[in-house]
Structures are given as C-alpha cells and as structure tokens.
C-alpha cells in the first residue's frame, strides 16, 4: 500500500500540494483525476521519490521513502515501474535496447532469455517487428506501448502511469486502456494512473481520487465519484464551463 500523509510541496511561491492525504490500495487500479496544472504528475513523482515533499510523509508498504540514501531509495524503487507522459524512451537506443535495458542492468539473465522476454513484452503490448526501430521512428501510441513494455518487463509490484493516453486518437486511447487492464489482470500489480480521460477512466479504475487545489477532494469507487454531488467534481466530470473551477 502507498500512503501519503499531509504532503506539502511548493515550487517557489506556487503551492502545488497543500496537505494532501491519500491511501492507494494494493493490487488495484487507482486513478488520480483533476484539472490540468493541479500537481497530478508532481504527486506521482513524489510517490517514486523523484521529488521530495517540503513536509509530510510518504510510505510505500509501510516504509517511509524520505531522507533515504540513494541505495535505500533504489531498493524501494525496485518495486516500481513507470510509464511517463511522453514515454521517456532512451532516444539513442533501439526499441529492443530500451526494453532490454532494465533486464540487462537489474538481472543476471542470459542474452537469449533477455531477448525472449523483450519480444514477449513487446508482443503483450501489441507490437511486432519494431524492435530494431528507434523511438523517433515510432508514432505517439507506439512509443507509449514501448514505454509500457519497459515498465512491466521486470514484473514490478507497482506501476505508475502519467497520462498514458494524452494526445492519442480515440482508438489508440481505447487500445492503451485495454492494455493496462489486460496487463493488470495478468500481473496483478498496483496501478496508479494520472488521467484526464473522463469518462473512459471510470471503466478501468477501481478507485478514483480527485485532486484539486493541492488536496484530494474526493476519493472512492468510480460510481461514487460519478454520482458525487460536490460541485467541483460534478463540473470536472461534466466538462462544464460554469462552476467553481475557473480555468480562464
């Protein structure tokens, strides 16, 4: 389980997280929704220790991830995989090398076994015959799939998805959501998905948390969030211009 307690984070004078509390249950898909610029990606980066909070506590499986030495933090990070918003593939490496990289560096598997696992992971995300291509030769959707293959190849316990479908066409979006659901069913990891995809995200998430003004405004099942009477949640879900959320 991932637990965030009273987490505060500011960048200069801008307060991004303002006393955030959240519990992410194990083995389930939790979606974090909320307007753009509310700090959803910042929240994900706190969970994996890429950013440190100004105050508050973050625990992964009961272990605090703050104030750790790099080696201690890396031990906790070994539980994680992460799919970045822009996939963050290593652009000087081929698709094969990208997916093989964590296996080569974190395991003692033979070259043949690494090859087998990489091709299998690529096949799991619906990619064939792309292993020799470089990231700049791939479409946005293919990059995300390669990123997903790289995130799951070590079979991590927790996977963080930072806007996995932003900027993709509806068919690819659905395909990526389907892949997340399929891989989750196959591997049973804890998934945390930052997403704007309303209402599609309600179909794949088992828990939904709405982030607004640096705090979790509401947290519950997709049905509870969809039936919420809170004006901010209602406005966000309906995409209405009228309401407490002022974007312009």
């Amino acid at each position: 389980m991932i637990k965030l307690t009273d987490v505060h984070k500011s960048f200069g004078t801008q307060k991004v997280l303002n006393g955030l509390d959240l519990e992410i249950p194990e083995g389930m898909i939790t979606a974090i929704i909320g307007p753009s610029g509310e700090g959803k990606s910042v929240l994900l980066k706190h969970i994996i220790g890429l950013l440190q909070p100004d105050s508050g506590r973050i625990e992964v499986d009961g272990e605090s991830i703050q104030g750790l030495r790099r080696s201690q933090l890396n031990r906790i990070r070994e539980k994680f995989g992460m799919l970045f918003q822009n996939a963050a593939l290593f652009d000087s490496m081929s698709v094969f090398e990208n997916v093989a990289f964590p296996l080569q560096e974190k395991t003692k598997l033979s070259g043949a076994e690494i090859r087998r696992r990489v091709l299998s992971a690529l096949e799991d995300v619906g990619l064939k015959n792309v292993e020799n291509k470089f990231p700049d030769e791939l479409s946005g959707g293919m990059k995300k799939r390669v990123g997903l293959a790289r995130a799951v190849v070590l079979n991590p316990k927790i996977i963080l998805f930072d806007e996995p479908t932003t900027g993709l066409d509806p068919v690819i979006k659905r395909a990526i959501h389907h892949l997340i659901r399929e891989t989750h069913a196959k591997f049973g990891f804890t998934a945390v998905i930052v997403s704007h995809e309303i209402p599609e995200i309600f179909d794949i998430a088992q828990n939904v948390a709405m982030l607004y003004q640096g705090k979790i405004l509401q947290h519950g099942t997709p049905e509870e969030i969809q039936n919420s009477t809170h004006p901010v949640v209602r406005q966000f879900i309906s995409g209405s211009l009228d309401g407490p959320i002022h974007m312009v």
Partner: protein
Amino acid sequence: MFSPVQALGQITIKHVRDLGRMGWFILYSLYMIARRPGRPRYILKQMRFIGTKSLFVIVLTAAFTGMVLGLQGYYTLAKFGSEGMLGTAVALSLIRELGPVLSALMVTGRAGSAITAEIGIMRISEQIDAMETMALDPFKYLITPKFIAAMISLPLLCALFDVVGIYGGWLVGVKLLGVNPGAYFYEMEKSVEWRDVYSGIVKSFSFGIIIAWIGCYKGYFSGHGAEGVSRATTESVVLTSVIILVWDYFLTSILL
C-alpha cells in the same frame, strides 16, 4: 519589494549554491569512478565520441598551429641568427602549452558542447528520471563513462597534437624557409626533457576532467525546454574554456 542589498544577497546565495552543487557533482563523479566505473562498452563508446571523432579537428588545428609557430619562430629567431633553434621553440611551445590547451579547447567546442546538449535533452525529456525510476544511478551510465573517456582521450589527443604540430613547424621551417633539418630535430631532442612532456600530460589529463565535469554538470542541471538546453550548452563551452585557461595558469606555475 527588493532593495539592492536583498538582490545582491539573493545573487550571492544563488552563486554559492551553484558552486556547492558543482563541487558535489565532481566529488560524486570521482567517487562513482572509483566505486562503479560503468561497463567498458559505455566507456569505449564515449572514447569513440570524445577521442576518435575529434581526430580530424585536432590534426587540422595542430598542423596549422605548428606551421604558424614555424613562421613566427623563424621570423623571431632569424633576428638573432638562431634559426637552428626553431625545432626547440616549436616543440617546447607545443608540448608545454599549446598542445594541451588548444586540443582541450577544440574538444570543448566539439565534444563538450555535445555532452551538455545530450544530457540536457535527456533531462528535459525525462530520460534521466526514467533511469532513476528503474533504480539505476544515471551517474554510472551517463556521467562516469564520459569522465573516464575524457581523462584517457585528452592526453592521447594532446600527444597527437604535439606530433602533428612539430611536423607542421618542420614543413614551414625546413621545407619552405630552409632551416637545416638535422638542426631542427637535434636541437629539439637536446632541449625537450621528460619533465616538459610530463607537464603536458598532466595538463591535458586535468583538462579532460574539466571538460567532462562542466559539460555533464551543465547538461544535468539544464533549465526547461529547448531554450534551457541551448543556454546550458553555451554556458558550458564558455565556462569550460575559461576554467581551462585559468587552471592552465595555476598548473603551469606549479609545474614550472
């Protein structure tokens, strides 16, 4: 509202913080070199980039530096009737000073800027973050191979610079201006000591560390977007060049 004193204080704090971060960066890099230097293939890849791919520019600049030294040296020495000392003048100038400094400046322009741009782009496209999320230390894969490659490549490039420069001086002095070929090499052999060669090697080795240090540091902490990387690249080249020249002065005063 900021008073001038507050503004000055803020600038001072920023620079002190930057200096501390630079100091931490080189100390951690050297620690990682000692502890986990990285796979040989990463180091060889960087040696190919920093060393092998700099060969052309090094040979070209060395040849013309040697040739101009031949011309200038001949003109000056002829005033004292000491044209026979041309080989010594060219060799000592190159081995002690121009070889290490010019080869380092050339590598700074060619490879130092590229190192900053590469790491900066990896930073802004979250590739470094991706590596960290895999519980892998980016220093082991990105930084230390560049340090080791620069520390090995720079002395070798400097040696090549010296040899090509000496033959450039020979071409102008002996072939064009008629200096005695025996005197050119004999006087050189008589005057150049191991200490001169040693000082050139020490200098180019330390310049290699400076190029990798500033190049990697500026990329690792580059600002946001394309503009941030472009600024970091410019700052990297300027700062590396300045530090090389300042460090050269101090090192020369120690090694003389």
